[in-house]
Structure formats: structure tokens, C-alpha cells
């Protein structure tokens, strides 16, 4: 049987190549989903940890525990705690980076054994900290010796410089504790052996900062344990601190749930819950898990169409194969093969193909995953940060589900075909009239559902927005609606295709040349055979367009919004010195700031323009019924501001520069946000008075109202504790910086910088270092934009849509080519007959070209039409579902010509290659051989 199968497969190698391709792509697509998702989750979690580290300067995964071991309990707590903390890493499943144990006994009566004038009792903490010797450098004196005591029985201790100053001791000095002794009653005596400092102050080992240990004397660990712990613990009150630091770079997303459970246990149930002082990492993990589900659902939904297309492709090719093997099957049957045998033959064949599919699909899946992860826009791969792809168990689960599906799709048609004997076969060869879906109006049903979905969603955009803002997962129905729309519309155009061809035929019925005539006949009578491949082309083009526009639109709008909210390429504010201290000492001196040297900005390389911008976000004015209302105050230099910032004129009632000009000619003028006019009834020409954060007032004549202004958010959207969305009006006043300075003096301002096109902002950081300019704040817009591009949701969307598009193009090109070659092979006899009747080769080609126009060209045009309508209707809704709280700018559809050109050229090249192959086949065709085909 295997021999039969292999010979059969070799005979139809191209068809099997297609089946293999489909199966490999299906497995790869299915496997790439969990691969990408897991990789992105890991990256997200790492990002959260990194952010925490950057923001707080603290190690993100650490557990701090503090307790006192009282004399009375004899060290039980201490022992338990030590056991417990040692088991923590196993319990949490984390790798230990650093385990630090710090014990101390306290003496309040330490006296110098030397004659000192000021020999008062000193408070000292005799302690040890695990791992200390490896993290310090001695600056004075010496490290304690190996025994930890000198020949006179003095415990050798080392101290930090802080302790040295704080206790005012000197190196070499000896002390005796009068408030406690060793267990045997001998007094505890110490000797200051040396002074240490941290080798690296930024090392996370220093959970207990050296400068905070003002009275701490460090001694040898073994000696400390021998003297004060174990059996001796019952004589002392000990301070015990444990710091467990865990490596976070190797924490993977799948550990998140476990970590959350353990954290809950530690904080709520464990016997040591009261001793735990710090468990910040769990906030980081929670932060991450809150984003998780939205991303996984969205990515999955986005991948569904391409998966379905892959299944359809496999089905189409296997049907084609069964069609070709109908004769073989019926012959096998009439020679006595049972239905089961035939079915098994095809089952084994499918299993073999799908098996190879897994072998090829899994590695390809990881390639897909990498491509996915590098997509920074539709069909653009600019992200260099590589994803770590790992083969986790769920990857295999998805791959095997895909294999199961592909075996099923390839075998199911065999059930039908294995029934057919040679007798039914002849009867079935009659021309098909209508497809089943045409009879049950599936196209109309699909369209109906999608149009209903469209109206439903467009009526309820606010609730869509709400769930998006809350970070809920994308509503699958939304995506289903748009997909059904495309599918239904495509099928409808397929239904009318024969009618259109018939109409064209009828128009020139008498005039058609024989070749055209034959092609019309073929298309009108036999065109339904092509419906599948045509639907494929329609879907490729329309989904391709839809994907391109949705990816571009969603990303570009977010980028535009970010660009708008940041104001300029770089926004920064230096720390200003002032004379506050002096005014406190001498009330007669007036408070003033010392303005940093503004001319230094001239040396900032790559800065095209820069300007001073005064911002007071906490100003106020007398609002409705004289209530104090918040207003954001912006002081600008109109000309420079216009050079540094940019605003789309379409967003405003009049061009942006017009606003700036209006303000420029009115030194005492102000521009107000439009809600002053719309909600509070202000008008141009009114006088507007406002106060800064310190209550000093200023005012000006209103020269205009704007809907948008760089950085201005008309509404602030927040989510209250009930999870409801709250919108608050936000007011802004824009005035001349010079005017504001006349009112309020020179106060700290921001500097907004416009960098030259393509110049990296590195120059800015160098400038800051060179000028030693302490920054109070800064925003690097390119960094913010990069964050948007790398946002897992947007990035994943771009990746999946791009990936789907590439897969669809491959399927479409291969499918179309195979379909046509098969179709020509099956009609070779007829071409032979036509050639025998004296038809020229060119005319045969002309005939086939005509048929291609009716099928391929028609499909492409339909695809374009459907794609255009679909994105006009559905992208605005889809986009709403991706909104965030700070979406300010109105959402606009973004179409990029280059995408369409790329799409059309790929489809065009496919058709051209197809024609070329056709031409080669037709011109190589031998009439007598073709006629012989019919005799077999």
C-alpha cells in the first residue's frame, strides 16, 4: 500500500507539494500564535520589571523580612526564619541572586577602655551581614582577622565611614559593653579594626545602605553565630533581617500565576506575614497579568481569518486531487477494493503529509514568530529587539490541533469519493448547475449578519470605546462582522459573475471570434468550477487591503496622538537655582530664580529650532458661578513656537499659523481652548483673567479659540473606582511668554526642541552631560513613539496582519497557478481538437487569457471594491476598539499608496507568471500527442 501511495504522490507531485505547503503553513501559523504570545508575554513581563527598576532604583524581585528574636524564646523564631527563607527560592521557583542575612545585638552602654575625655556611654550594634567581605574595600585600618578576635580577646570589628563619624571613634580603639556579657559571663569587648566602604554602592547587595548603618559594627559571621545564636540565643535580644533577592531576567510569563498565589500566601497566610515588609514585585506581576488577556484574545481573533483560509486552501487542493483521482478510485473499486481500503489509503496519505507538515511547520513557526516580532508597521520590519522563541507545551498542542484539522480536511472528501463506482462517475460528470451555497443564499445571509453587526457596533461606539479604555479584550463579533462582510460580499459578486459574462457575450454575440466565443462558453457554462479559486483571490485582495488599512490606521493614529501629546521632539526643564534660603534668613530679600544660561542651547547639535515654553498645569480661573476652576497656562514665543511645533490645519477652525499670527499681533492677547466658548460662553474680545499656581493673576484679551493645541487634551478620561469612565473638561490658556513674565517675573520654563530630520536624540543627552545640566524633567518623543511601536498589542496586530497577508499571498499565488495548470491539463484534449480544426496557438492563448480576465481580473477588481467598502465601514469601528484613555485627536482613516501598489504588484505578478506558464504549455503542446490523450 505504501508503494502505491508513494508512486501516486510522485505522479502528482505538484498537487502534493501544494497540500504539503498548506499543511506546513497551517502548522506554522498555528504554532506561531502561542510562540509569539508567550515570547511577547515574557518580553512584557521583563519590561515591567525593567520599568520598575528604572523608576524606583530598587531590585524588582526582592523579599524583605524583619523580626526580633527575644531572649525568652531562645532563638526559635530565628531558626524558623532561617529555614523559611532558605526554602523561599524553591517555593517561588526563582533563582537566588543574593540572600542576605543581617543579625545584630544592641549595646546601649559601650565604654571606651582607653582614657578619653568624653567617655560617655555609646549605643552600638554589634552585627554581621552575610557576604560582607566580598562587597567592601578597606579604606583605613584592617579587615578583622580569620578568628575574629585579637590576642587579648577583643572582637575585631570594622565600621563604615558614617559610623566612624557618627560614633566619633578612632581606628584601633577598644570598647567594652557593660549592659551584656557572653553566655559564660565574660564581658563583651570590641576593637575598631578598620573602616570600610562599599566597593560598588549601586550593588543591590546594599539593601541595608552603609550610610544608614550609623552605629553598626561588623564582626566575623562564625564568631557572631557561635557567641550569640544557637544555644546562646536565650541570653540576647537580636534584630534579624533577611533580604532575598531573586534573578528576574529568567522569570517567564507562565510563572506569573504561581508568583501571585505565593505572594498571596506569604502576605495573608504564612506564619511570617507580619515580618514581611516589602513585596513590590507582586504589583509588577499584577500589572502585567491585567494586560495579558486582552492581548491573547486580540491576537487570536486577528489570526482566525488566515487560519480559515488555510483550511479552505487545503480543502480546495484535496478536492482537486480527488477530482483527478476519481477514475483511479472507481477503477480500484471495480477491481474489488473495499471502501475501507480506499479510505485508509487516503488517511495514511493525509497523516504522512501532515506529519511532514509538523516537521516543517514548527521551525517555520519560529521564523514566523520572529517576523511577527519585528514588524513595526504593515509589511515593515524595523524592530531589532529579538524575541526569545521557546517550544513550550502549548506550542505542541496548537501544532497537533493543526495537524488533526489538516488530516481531517484531507481525508473527509475521501469518504464521499470512496463511495463512487465507475457507474455513478459517468452519471456525475454532467455539468453542475448551482453551488450549494448559492441555493441556500449563504452570501446574502453573511451580508445580512455583517450589516446587522455594523449597525449594532456603530450605534454603540461609546460602549466599545469604554471597554477598550478599560483594557478589556476585543469583541470577537466585531472582527467576525468585518470578515463575514468580506466573505458574503465576495460570494455575492461570484454569484453575479456568470451573469456579467453572459451580458458581455450577448452584446457581441455575432461578432465574437472563435477563440473569444469558446472562452465565453467555457466561463458561462463551466465557470462555477472556478468559484473556489476566485473566492480565494477576492479574499486575498480584499482582506489584504482591509488588513493594510486597519494596521496603518490604528498604528498611525496612535503615533500621531503621541506626537501631539508630547508637543515637540524634546521637551525638557532644567533644575533652576533660587535664593529661597537667603529669603528665609532675610525677609527683606525678594525671592527670585536664577535663570540658567539659555545661550548654551546654541551648542546643541542637531537642534533645528528651540523655544522657551512656560507651563503651569495648576493655574485657575473664576469659572461657572465664580467657582475656582483649573486651567493649564501656556506661555509661548509665537514665532519660535510655530517653528518647533506642528499641528494639522484640518484639526482647527483656521490654519495653525493663523492662530499664532493672531496672538503675535496682540501683545496682551490670549488664545483659549474651545470649551471656554462652548461651555462657559466666552467670546473673542472678552477679557480673561487667570491665576498661576501661587495665586498671582494675569489677564488678556481673547483673540481666538482652538479645538486642539500641542499637548492639549480637551477632556481627561479616567476610570473611577467603580470601573466607570469619567470625563472631565480640561481648559487651556495660551499667552505670550513675555507678557506672563511681566506679570510673574522670570520663572522656570521648559525648553522645547525641534531636532533636525533623522538626527538622533543622542546629541541631546551628550549636551546634557557636557553642560552638566541637571534636568527636572525631560521627554524624548522618539522614545515615546518607539514605545508605541513596540506596544505588544499594536506590535502584535501589525505582525499578525502582515503575516496573514504574506501567507494569503503565497496561498493565492500557488493556488491560482496550480488551479490553472490543472485546468489546462484536463482540457488538453480539447485544445488538441481545436488545434486540429485549425486554431492557431496564439488564439488558444487568447482564449485562455480571456478566461483569465473573466476569473482572475474579475476577482481582483471585486477584491478591490470589497476591500474599499469594507475598510470604509469597519476600520473606524475597529479602531475605536483599540483606543486608549489619552486618545485626543480624532481618528482618521490612513491609506498608504505603497501598500496598495505592493498588493497589486504581487497579485499582478502572480497573474503574469500564470499567463507565462500557460503560454509555455500552449506553445509546447503537440497536437497529435494531445489527441492521443483522448484515446487512452
Amino acid at each position: 500500500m505504501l508503494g502505491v501511495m508513494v508512486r501516486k504522490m510522485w505522479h502528482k507531485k505538484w498537487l502534493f507539494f501544494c497540500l504539503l505547503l498548506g499543511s506546513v503553513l497551517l502548522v506554522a501559523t498555528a504554532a506561531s500564535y502561542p510562540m509569539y504570545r508567550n515570547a511577547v508575554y515574557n518580553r512584557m513581563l521583563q519590561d515591567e520589571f525593567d520599568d520598575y527598576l528604572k523608576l524606583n532604583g530598587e531590585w524588582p524581585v526582592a523579599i524583605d523580612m524583619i523580626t526580633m528574636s527575644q531572649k525568652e524564646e531562645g532563638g526559635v523564631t530565628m531558626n524558623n526564619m532561617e529555614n523559611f527563607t532558605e526554602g523561599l527560592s524553591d517555593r517561588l521557583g526563582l533563582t537566588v541572586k543574593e540572600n542576605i542575612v543581617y543579625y545584630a545585638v544592641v549595646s546601649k552602654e559601650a565604654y571606651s577602655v582607653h582614657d578619653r575625655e568624653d567617655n560617655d556611654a555609646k549605643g552600638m550594634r554589634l552585627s554581621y551581614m552575610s557576604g560582607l567581605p566580598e562587597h567592601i574595600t578597606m579604606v583605613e585600618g584592617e579587615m578583622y582577622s580569620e578568628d575574629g578576635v585579637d590576642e587579648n580577646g577583643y572582637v575585631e570589628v570594622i565600621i563604615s565611614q558614617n559610623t566612624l563619624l557618627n560614633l566619633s571613634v578612632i581606628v584601633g580603639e577598644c570598647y567594652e559593653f557593660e549592659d551584656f556579657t557572653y553566655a559564660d559571663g565574660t564581658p563583651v569587648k570590641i576593637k575598631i579594626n578598620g573602616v570600610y566602604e562599599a566597593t560598588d554602592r549601586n550593588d543591590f547587595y546594599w539593601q541595608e545602605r552603609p550610610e544608614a548603618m550609623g552605629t553598626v559594627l561588623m564582626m566575623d559571621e562564625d564568631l557572631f553565630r557561635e557567641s550569640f545564636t544557637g544555644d546562646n540565643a536565650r541570653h540576647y535580644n537580636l534584630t534579624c533581617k533577611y533580604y532575598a533577592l531573586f534573578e528576574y531576567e529568567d522569570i517567564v510569563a507562565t510563572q506569573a500565576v504561581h508568583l501571585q498565589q505565593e505572594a498571596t500566601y506569604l502576605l495573608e497566610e504564612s506564619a511570617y506575614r507580619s515580618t514581611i515588609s516589602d513585596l513590590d514585585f507582586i504589583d509588577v506581576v499584577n500589572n502585567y497579568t491585567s494586560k495579558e488577556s486582552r492581548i491573547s484574545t486580540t491576537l487570536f481573533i486577528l489570526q482566525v481569518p488566515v487560519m480559515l483560509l488555510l483550511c479552505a486552501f487545503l480543502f480546495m487542493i484535496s478536492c482537486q486531487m480527488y477530482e483527478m483521482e476519481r477514475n483511479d478510485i472507481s477503477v480500484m473499486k471495480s477491481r474489488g477494493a473495499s471502501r475501507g481500503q480506499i479510505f485508509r489509503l487516503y488517511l495514511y496519505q493525509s497523516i504522512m503529509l501532515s506529519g511532514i507538515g509538523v516537521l516543517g511547520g514548527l521551525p517555520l513557526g519560529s521564523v514566523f514568530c520572529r517576523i511577527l516580532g519585528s514588524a513595526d508597521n504593515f509589511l515593515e520590519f524595523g524592530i531589532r529587539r529579538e524575541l526569545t522563541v521557546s517550544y513550550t507545551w502549548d506550542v505542541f498542542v496548537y501544532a497537533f490541533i493543526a495537524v488533526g484539522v489538516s488530516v481531517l480536511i484531507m481525508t473527509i472528501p475521501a469518504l464521499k469519493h470512496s463511495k463512487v463506482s465507475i457507474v455513478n462517475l459517468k452519471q456525475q460528470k454532467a455539468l453542475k448547475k448551482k453551488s450549494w451555497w448559492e441555493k441556500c443564499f449563504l452570501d446574502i445571509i453573511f451580508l445580512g449578519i455583517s450589516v446587522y453587526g455594523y449597525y449594532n457596533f456603530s450605534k454603540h461606539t461609546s460602549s466599545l470605546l469604554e471597554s477598550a479604555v478599560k483594557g478589556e479584550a476585543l469583541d470577537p463579533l466585531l472582527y467576525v462582522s468585518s470578515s463575514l462582510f468580506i466573505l458574503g460580499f465576495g460570494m455575492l459578486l461570484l454569484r453575479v459573475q456568470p451573469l456579467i459574462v453572459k451580458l458581455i457575450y450577448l452584446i457581441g454575440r455575432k461578432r465574437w471570434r472563435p477563440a473569444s466565443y469558446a472562452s465565453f462558453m467555457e466561463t458561462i457554462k463551466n465557470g462555477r468550477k472556478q468559484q473556489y479559486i476566485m473566492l480565494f483571490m477576492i479574499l486575498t485582495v480584499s482582506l489584504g487591503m482591509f488588513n493594510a488599512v486597519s494596521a496603518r490606521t490604528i498604528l498611525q493614529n496612535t503615533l500621531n496622538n503621541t506626537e501631539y501629546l508630547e508637543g515637540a521632539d524634546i521637551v525638557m526643564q532644567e533644575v533652576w537655582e533660587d535664593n529661597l534660603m537667603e529669603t528665609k534668613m532675610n525677609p527683606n530679600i525678594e525671592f527670585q530664580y536664577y535663570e540658567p544660561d539659555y545661550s548654551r542651547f546654541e551648542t546643541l547639535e542637531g537642534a533645528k529650532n528651540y523655544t522657551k515654553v512656560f507651563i503651569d498645569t495648576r493655574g485657575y480661573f473664576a469659572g461657572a458661578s465664580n467657582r475656582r476652576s483649573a486651567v493649564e497656562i501656556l506661555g509661548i514665543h509665537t514665532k519660535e513656537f510655530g517653528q518647533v511645533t506642528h499641528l494639522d490645519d484640518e484639526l482647527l477652525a483656521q490654519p495653525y499659523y493663523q492662530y499664532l499670527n493672531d496672538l503675535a499681533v496682540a501683545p496682551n492677547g490670549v488664545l483659549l481652548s474651545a470649551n471656554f466658548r462652548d461651555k462657559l460662553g466666552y467670546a473673542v474680545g472678552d477679557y480673561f483673567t487667570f491665576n498661576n499656581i501661587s495665586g498671582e493673576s494675569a489677564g488678556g484679551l481673547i483673540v481666538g479659540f482652538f479645538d486642539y493645541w500641542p499637548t492639549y487634551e480637551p477632556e481627561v478620561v479616567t476610570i473611577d473606582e467603580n470601573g466607570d469612565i469619567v470625563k472631565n473638561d480640561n481648559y487651556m490658556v495660551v499667552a505670550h511668554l513675555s507678557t506672563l513674565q511681566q506679570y510673574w517675573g522670570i520663572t522656570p520654563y521648559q525648553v522645547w526642541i525641534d531636532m533636525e530630520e533623522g538626527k538622533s536624540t543622542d546629541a541631546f543627552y551628550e549636551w546634557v552631560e557636557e553642560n552638566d545640566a541637571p534636568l527636572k524633567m525631560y521627554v524624548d518623543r522618539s522614545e515615546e513613539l518607539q514605545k508605541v511601536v513596540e506596544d505588544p498589542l499594536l506590535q502584535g496586530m501589525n505582525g499578525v496582519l502582515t503575516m496573514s497577508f504574506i501567507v494569503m499571498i503565497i496561498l493565492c499565488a500557488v493556488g491560482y497557478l496550480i488551479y490553472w495548470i490543472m485546468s489546462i491539463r484536463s482540457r488538453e484534449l480539447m485544445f488538441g481538437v481545436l488545434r486540429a480544426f485549425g486554431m492557431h496557438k496564439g488564439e488558444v492563448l487568447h482564449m485562455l487569457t480571456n478566461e483569465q480576465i473573466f476569473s482572475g481580473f474579475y476577482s481582483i477588481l471585486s477584491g478591490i471594491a470589497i476591500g474599499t467598502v469594507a475598510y470604509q465601514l469597519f476600520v473606524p469601528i475597529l479602531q475605536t476598539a483599540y483606543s486608549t484613555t489619552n486618545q485626543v485627536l480624532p481618528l482618521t482613516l490612513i491609506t498608504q499608496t505603497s501598500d496598495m501598489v505592493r498588493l497589486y504588484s504581487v497579485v499582478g505578478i502572480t497573474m503574469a507568471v500564470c499567463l507565462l506558464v500557460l503560454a509555455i504549455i500552449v506553445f509546447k503542446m503537440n497536437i497529435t500527442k494531445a489527441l492521443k490523450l483522448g484515446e487512452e
Partner: protein
Amino acid sequence: MKNIAEIIGVSRAFSVSGGEFYALKNINLEIPENKLTILRGKSGSGKTTLMNIIGALDYPTTGQIMMDGRDIVKMSDRKREKLRRTQFGFVFQSVSLIPTMNAYQNVEYALRMAGIKGNHKARVEECLKMVGLGGRMTHMPSELSGGEQQRVAIARAIAHRPRILFADEPTAELDSAMAAEVTELFKRMTSQENVTIIMTTHDVGLMDAGDVIVELKDGEQVCQKQ
């Protein structure tokens, strides 16, 4: 008796592994006009090859096919195509109707191919009636029996009034009664339609119908009966 075509020294070699195989060896033959000539022989005797060469579907390795004083072997492809379109008609062993056209359209297509202008209806109907299918003109090929399909093919082959009709084993897939009927039809057509018919067959029973019978064996002409 006038000859419509003259075959002079025609040989046809095919390259096969290990040299050349001669399917036809030095055939010399005259085809009388408006008569039914039968090429007879076992399978592999070269009769189809010979017919394809006369019908300008294939080229001889050596030799000439003279028609109207011209060697059609030396004609350009375009000229040979025109010859096939306008002066020849073909009926093949297997059913060769265009599956997407009904009986009427199939016959009419031959007229379109030959470039015959004017109203085709009368001629198409005449031809279909001649083969006894006047009542099934709108049937699709798949709705006709094998014999009926073959008769439509014959109607199509003569519709444009060719001078020579080539029929390659036209009766091979038909039962003997039907075969006799088709052969009878051919015979009748030679006088009715003034057409020369060249037909191949391996059926001994049909021999008597032919005006000229040429027997081939292993590529060689073994005898010719008038």
C-alpha cells in the same frame, strides 16, 4: 477518376531510446476525390500516423503530400492551419465535442472557425438532420450517448463543407450496428456532400463499404483494393 491528394514516398521516424523507429516506411498512395478511402491495419500499423500527416497535423520525416499541385508539407504553419480550418474536417476516435457547448453550438463552431459568414442556422440544422439528430440540437454533450456524440462530431466535421473529412477510428467506441450505420453515413456523404473521406479502422466488417481500401502493416503498405 481524379485524385484529390497524392502521397509520395512518405516516411515517418520517431526517436526512441536506442535509435529511430519507423512508423511509416516509404508510403506511396493516391486518394481519389469524393470517395471513401479506408486505411486499415492493426494497432501500431501506422494508419493514424499516416492520416495525421495527410491531415496536416503532423509532418513526415521524408516525402511529399501533393494537393492541387502543391506540397502541403512545405506550407507554413499558418497556411496549414487555414487548410485544416477551411478544407479539412476531423472526426476523432474519442469524443471530442466541446463540453460547454450544446450540439447545435458545437456544429456551428466549425462554421465560425472556417470563417463562414452569414446565417449558419440552416446549414447547422441540415448537418444535424443528416446525422439523424435533428431533434436533439439543444442537448449538451453530457446528455447524449456515445454514438450520438460521435454523430454530432461528424456533423461538425462536414458543416463547413470541407473537401476532405478525416475520421480516425470513428467507430471504435461504438457497437457494431452503430458502426455500420456510421460507415453507411460516410458512404452516403461522399456523393451527397461531395466530400472525400479518409477513415482509419481495424474493424474487418466495415471493409466492404470503402471505395478504396489501403492495408498497412508495420508501417508498410501491404495492399490496395479499388
